[in-house]
């Protein structure tokens, strides 16, 4: 199963170390392949370095792509994280 979800970066510092860390930790719990896409560039959401190199800033619109057996669950959880600014 492959799911594409639109998410928005609402944390003021963008995807800096702390939000990126929270995201990576959460994403790593899933078996699904999880990626984030910005302007056509896709990065592995389980990799902190890749995620930071996405250069996502406050207000950016990203596409969350989850693919695998728990893709659905992953998409729901990660979307919530974006909504709650990773708090």
């Amino acid at each position, binding site marked *: 199963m492959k799911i594409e979800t639109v998410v928005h970066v609402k944390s003021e510092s963008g995807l800096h170390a702390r939000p990126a860390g929270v995201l990576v930790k959460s994403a790593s719990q899933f078996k699904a392949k999880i990626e984030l896409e910005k302007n056509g560039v896709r990065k*592995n959401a389980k990799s902190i*370095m890749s995620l930071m*190199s996405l250069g996502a800033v406050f207000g950016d619109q990203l596409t969350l792509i989850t693919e695998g057996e728990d893709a659905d669950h992953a998409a729901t959880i990660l979307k919530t994280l974006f909504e709650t600014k990773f708090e």
Partner: protein
Amino acid sequence: MKQVLFGKTCFPGIAIGPAVWFRSTQINLENIKTETPAIEIQKLEIAFQKTESSLKILIESQQSDSKDISISKDILEAHLMMLGDPEWKGQTLEFIQQGKSAAVSLKESSQIFKSMLESLDDEYLKARAHDIEDLSYQVLTHLTGQGLDKLKLTEPCILVAKGLLPSEFLSLDKKKLLGLIFENSSNTSHTAILAKTFEIPCIVGVHNLSDFIFEKNLIIMDALKAQIQTEPSLEAQNLALKELESQKEESKNLEIFISKKSISQDHISFEVASNLSCIDDMKLAIQKGTEGCGLFRSEFLLLDQKSMPSEEEQFQTYKTLVQSLAPSKAVIRLFDIGGDKQLPFLQLPKEENPFLGLRGLRLSLSQPDILLKPQLRALLRSAPYGKLAIMAPMVTTLGEVQDFKMALKTCENELLSEGLLSTPPSYEVGIMVEVPAIALILNDLIPHLNFVSVGTNDLIQYLCATDRMNSTVSHLHDAYHPAVLRFLYLISNELKNSTVWMGLCGELAAQNDYVPLLMAMGFKELSVSPGSLLKTRAKVCGTSVEASQKILQLALKAKSSAELKNLLQN
């Protein structure tokens, strides 16, 4: 990134040059053997595990450390997460599969991720490239076993480090050191004192250095303003070079004081002497026209030693010192160990509060056969070669002074009966005044002493109950606190009209605005690092003691550090 950083001045001066990080001992990958991918992968796994456990140990150790816990813990935890990054590791494994060694593969994959972050517009994320560099360095040290060796400077540079141990500093080629920048180190740490000794512009206490200063990037530091510029414009570079020139000119103008005696405007004689840590320091001080040595830190003889130096070895050093400085005085302080200067070969028990523990004379008296006697014997044997003064550190009671003098007498008699001395030597005996308790009973010590020397760094630390190494409170380690001035005044009153002469061997003697106050209180000997010698002498020569006494009376009434500073500046 272009940035101006601030810290605290340790030794003033301007420097311009490439930054070299101290931790980044060059790891050489050229002679690394490459084995089969399976074995290389195994090596990588082990190095990752080792790095992970050292990071975890470091994280744990942060909890007992009170300062900036959350920040440093966050950083370390981010490092831990980066270490587990599947992409980074995946890329490394891919390179290994292509037939490269684990070390080369790691270095190359790190480079890929570093460049990726460096290409971003976001300054914060750009700075994270340095975290990758840091981390890959840590893994590489475990992979290669390198990186524990001492750093060799290949070109003139500004050395940047979190902190630096005195022994590490001492192993560097000082001729190639244009400047020093430290993240942690407080202004009065021993490395900072060494920087002053070697006259190297030095800024301490700059936060998050590794985010802003990168290996080999050109930087400008103005240590007087405690300011660092990264990626300076051409204009800024030219300005810095110009200022560097005028600085050289100023020190050239001070050169006329090399051959001058330290005599005040109203013809009162003083001695501007030097604080020394080794024979190299002494050579520099003699070139600058030092009037003797007001503090020889004998414990530096013990640094980097696997065992205790013998009486004979000690004797050779003391003899060189006493002989070279004659006819001026050489004040040699007994080993001041303990506190922040631990020695591996002595295996001293770990103390909760080393600064309040077994250090200085306390330690020497507790280990007479290993520490006290060999040193006293070596010192007494050097006495006939010049003008020796023996000084005990960290003295708290009259009883300690008596024990110290008794030990001197015993050693003297031994040497006379062994024939190592032909006649009773002449020398002076004194103590450091650092412990407030001893300052309050100095009057009782007059019959036992020839001199006292106030060690202001430690005295202020004990008086203000402030750890000078702790950057979160080091602002309270303040020589301009009215209590410090009044305490110095009290010391001078304890010794008024006695034959006991007073010296001062803390860095306070290098504070130009404070010098007239010290002169007015009757401190006859001001001992500073060789780099500050001429400045202090110029000040002494330009000061009238009589006029300073009036200023002193006003200064004693100051109610705050700011008020005192303000008074002294006008």
